[in-house]
């Protein structure tokens, strides 16, 4: 049995800023989260909410400059990733932490065979020879459900369909038995029937391999299906974080509540009108000095406009960054 209290990844107060010609863009503001072995953490947010940049920052996959990780610590397996040398970082990327990108069309190299791209990390990180690596590559393709795997190693990415390509991406990410798998919108570019196949595959792989997964998505339906815990991001900050059942049953932040309301439900009677969140997400050209959701929030009051709420505990595994007390239906007591 694993020690339940241990964490594989612990991120604290991460702050990423882009220095652009038009000034700074504060893409990630004081983001903290942790990941336990074997669990699946879902990160939800709209485009521009900083969810991808957060994950890219973890592995320094962002071009620096213009990006700059201004503060925070990223503890992986007892080491701070911010402090490790470039050479060690290379070992972590693709070795200990696997990454699945959103678009399976553009994240595979079109001029190399799938086999080559699978074998490369195996030889680099695991020190296998060609023969061993090829055998393992075929096993991996089989693992992700690609029929006739040994023969398909010789195929190029364009010979695979979208869903199959995403399976190849998953196989590459899994190649070196990573402790953590980061999946950045892995099913967004796919059709629902193919998405259902991939979700089923991930559930199965988790049982078999037991790694921890961070799953980034904007689709709350997908989160409901596979996540253990969820963090909701808005404007570069985590505004709510809870166990998945708790979050859907008892959402606290007005943004989370609104997001859940805007979803049309398949099984229920049709609502006359979809509830929508008016207004636009903010542009992130300044450090947050007030609640970033305030202009769109229906519970907004004076304090929200002058102070940025910090995350506070609602219950044991549930915290929210908001001054409004949803359960009491009124503002929190100041201080």
């Amino acid at each position, binding site marked *: 049995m694993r020690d339940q209290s241990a964490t594989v990844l612990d991120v604290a107060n991460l702050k990423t800023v882009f220095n652009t010609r038009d000034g700074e863009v504060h893409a990630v503001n004081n983001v903290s989260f942790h990941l336990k072995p074997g669990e699946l953490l879902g990160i939800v947010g*709209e*485009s521009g909410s900083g969810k991808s940049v957060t994950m890219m920052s973890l592995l320094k996959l962002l071009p620096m400059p213009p990006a700059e990780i201004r503060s925070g610590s990223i503890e992986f397996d007892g080491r701070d990733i911010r402090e490790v040398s470039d050479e060690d970082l290379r070992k972590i990327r693709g070795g200990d932490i696997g990454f699945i990108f959103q678009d399976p069309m553009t994240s595979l190299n079109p001029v190399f065979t799938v086999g080559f791209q699978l074998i490369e990390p195996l030889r680099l990180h695991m020190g296998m020879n060609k023969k061993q690596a090829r055998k393992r590559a075929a096993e991996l393709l089989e693992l992700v459900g690609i029929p006739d795997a040994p023969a398909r190693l010789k195929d190029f990415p364009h010979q695979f*369909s*979208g*869903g*199959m390509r995403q399976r190849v991406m998953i196989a590459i990410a899994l190649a070196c038995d990573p402790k953590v798998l980061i999946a950045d919108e892995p099913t967004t570019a796919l*059709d*629902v*029937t*193919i*998405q*259902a*196949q991939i*979700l*089923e595959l991930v559930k199965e792989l988790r049982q078999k391999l037991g790694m921890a997964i961070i799953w980034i998505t*904007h*689709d*709350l*339906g*997908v*989160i*409901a*299906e596979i*996540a253990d815990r969820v963090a909701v991001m808005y404007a570069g900050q985590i505004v709510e974080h809870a166990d*998945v*059942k708790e979050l*859907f*049953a008892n959402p606290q932040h007005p943004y989370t509540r*609104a*997001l*859940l309301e*805007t*979803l*049309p*439900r*398949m*099984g229920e009677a*049709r*609502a006359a*009108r*979809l*509830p*929508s*969140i*008016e207004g*636009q*997400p903010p542009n992130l050209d300044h450090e947050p000095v007030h609640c970033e959701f305030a202009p769109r929030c229906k519970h907004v009051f004076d304090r929200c406009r002058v102070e940025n709420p910090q995350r506070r505990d609602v219950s044991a595994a549930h915290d929210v960054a908001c001054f409004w007390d949803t359960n009491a239906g009124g503002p929190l007591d100041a201080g």
Partner: protein
Amino acid sequence: MLDEKKKPLVQVKNLKMHFPINRGILKRQVGAVKAVDGISFDVFEGETLGLVGESGCGKSTVGRCVLRLYEVTEGSIDIDGTDIATLSGAELRAKRPEMQMIFQDPQASLNPRMTVGSIISEPLDEHLNMSKAEKREKVGELMDAVGLARRFADRYPHEFSGGQRQRIGIARALALNPKFIVCDEPIAALDVSIQAQVVNLLEDLQEKLGLTYLFISHDLSMVRHLATRVAVMYLGRLVELGDSETLYMTPKHPYTQALLSAVPHPDPAQAGNIDRVILQGDVPSPANPPPGCTFSTRCPRAEAVCKQNSPEWREIGEGHFAACHFIE
């Protein structure tokens, strides 16, 4: 329930759109991509017909054919009594104001070098003789109607967010008071919170102006909300068409059943106990569709007869059509 008074505004009969595949030095035709292969449906006045299917099933091609943005291979498209599939260029042009389109990608369908005002007034320039002042007034009215501030008329598309750009596209489509609008995945490129805004706008406009929509989308839950009737497409053919409520509650075709069960439910309490049909494999290529029923390669109920005979498109309930050998 089909009302006697309801009359079809658009009648599509046996529509086929085959794109030729040319190979070799002589560019001889060696085959065809059967993007749309013989489909028929009606769109009634004032309703929203949802058209759903996976990518590559030909739903966008249907949308474009219905407005004759492609020269169709076969079939007729009656819009308000005129078969537009055979109209000449000038006649078609005169018919254009009645039928408009809203495109998927508001980034790509707006000219980045034109101001919002000139984008919205371009159809007015083309089809009507309006004075400058009249045009400015009309553009202002349209911008009000879609919820854009009039003072933005001199700005360029890049200064707007995705949702606002889609509003510009809607204003342009409305400029000539059309009766029929084809919406080709108008919300696919937008965030969830913005999608609801645009969907509500489309609904308000329909109510106010009596519009008829053909709403093409792969988002099944959004289509359920918006559409009166829904047609499901697979590999160039319709597999099921029915009243939205009936189709979502009691889908008859195995493909519709699989498609609906694949949609993730935003409720973790239920996540464990959903009966999910997971389809194996991928959609076959429309250049080389399987013989018989096109869905037979992935269908959990397929039998020998499906691989030989193509099922007939028939009425299985009141206003409920499907193409499958095994539906009573």
